[in-house]
């Protein structure tokens, strides 16, 4: 689809959904307390904006996601390269990391709070953990499965190990690493909310919890929409940057 067509598609779909949403909300089938109209949600957003917490929450949450993502992603790439190319690390860490994978981030929140308190540390930890596993898995897979012909070609062209690593293995694995980063960014958001739901004094997750205490579904909807838009934008960002970075392989 052409860019203009895609924008049109997104716009029409959202308008359609909003109309249905509005029709359901005003139909009287469900109390508007529980299911606010689009208009009420818009008013709630303005209210949050006027109070100055709409963007400060956004900034706090984005900051946490960014720090956690950076820590998790850099460790994930580093360890992924090590476990894929060094047998010692593969044997030492592989089984352990595979055992960690089924543990959901939210299960780690209590542990994180005991270890790091309810401050920023526990949030970074939970987010970094989730991002790390996604990035590690993809980096490991991509790096361990570099096409044999590339390695053979590189060696018969006289490349030594260092050059083979930096000029052949890393670029060959790059598409997988980028996929891992994109997945990691999405997961950073999921675990961010999990971390913020228990013990935070700002951020989108906290605001959702706070709204629950006052049964402010309109404010909750604002939070959910924020998360949706932010996640979608971030994903697009990774697609665009990823396509530039690994231009030889369209994602």
């Amino acid at each position, binding site marked *: 689809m052409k860019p203009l067509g895609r924008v049109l598609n997104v716009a029409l779909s959202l308008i359609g959904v909003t109309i249905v949403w509005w029709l359901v909300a005003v139909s009287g089938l469900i109390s508007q307390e529980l299911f606010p109209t689009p208009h009420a949600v818009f008013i709630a957003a303005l209210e949050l904006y006027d109070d100055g917490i709409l963007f400060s929450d956004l900034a706090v949450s984005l900051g946490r996601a960014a720090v956690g993502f950076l820590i998790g992603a850099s460790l994930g790439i580093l360890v992924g390269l090590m476990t894929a190319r060094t047998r010692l690390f593969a044997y030492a860490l592989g089984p352990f990391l595979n055992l960690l994978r089924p543990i959901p981030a939210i299960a780690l929140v209590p542990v994180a709070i005991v270890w790091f308190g309810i401050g920023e540390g526990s949030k970074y930890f939970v987010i970094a953990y989730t991002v790390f596993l996604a990035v590690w898995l993809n980096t490991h897979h991509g790096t361990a499965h570099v096409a044999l*012909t*590339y390695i*053979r*070609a*590189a*060696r*018969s*062209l*006289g*490349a030594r190990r260092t*050059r083979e690593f930096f*000029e*052949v293995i890393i*670029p*060959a694995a*790059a598409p997988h690493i980028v996929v891992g980063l994109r997945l990691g960014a999405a997961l950073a958001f999921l675990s961010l909310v999990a971390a913020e739901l228990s013990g935070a004094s700002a951020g989108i997750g906290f605001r959702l919890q706070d709204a629950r205490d006052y049964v402010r579904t309109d404010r909750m909807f604002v939070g959910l929409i924020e998360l949706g838009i932010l996640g979608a934008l971030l994903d697009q960002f990774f697609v665009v940057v990823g396509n530039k970075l*690994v*231009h*030889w*392989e369209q994602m």
Partner: protein
Amino acid sequence: MSDPTGIADSSNGLGKVEIEDLTITFKLPGGEPLDAVKNVDLILEPGSFTALIGPSGCGKSTILNAIAGFVPISGGTIRIDQDMVTGINPEVGVVFQQYALFPWFTAIGNVEFALKRLQLPKAERRDRAIEALREVGLEDRARTFPGQLSGGMKQRVALARTFASEPKVLLMDEPFGALDAQTRVAMQELLLRVWDMHRATVLFVTHDVDEALLLSDWAHVMSAGPGRIVESIDVDTPRPRKVDEVTEDFLNNRNRIMRLLRPGESGDSAE
């Protein structure tokens, strides 16, 4: 087989490949051993062009991979200028059927990758890379990534890349197998032209009889089960050869090879 054609005189005398009693055994998934290649003797004279012809599964690519150092051998020896082949060696260049160009480097980046082992000053490396691309007629595509090149162009970059690092021995594994008929003929002529400038010892694996007879000084016909050489043909059609000038020699050789390749007549049933 001594000096095959006399053209060896024009090379620098390096790049002699001696294969003695070569056996390569693979383990099948069930654990049973399979002799992909058995008791093969083969000598490639310096600067000569040798073709290996045979049906798929006859072990012709396996021999090539063994000379390249890609697969371990189970018995016998492979020597290049007296040195035993023990692993991958940059003196031996390889051109792959699927090009194996690095898609993250431009055409010139791919050629420079090969030149880096010579540790030249940057400017000289660049000049030589451009020169190598000029030899294959692609100097105006130097900045193009492989993804934007046609199959024939990719293989020309791959040829330039391999010749640029000046290997003594050049192994080609069905390099034109993925190309259409016209591109293929153009590539064969280009290969002969570039080879004439560099004169590496070439081993060319193909299942195309015409291609083998057009290019080579010696054509060895292989048979499967176990992989071995069943006949060696001295292709003495004078050079330069043309695709559109079929001589009687050519036809005789062609008929001979065709009969050998016909299933059931080349000793396929022999054990």
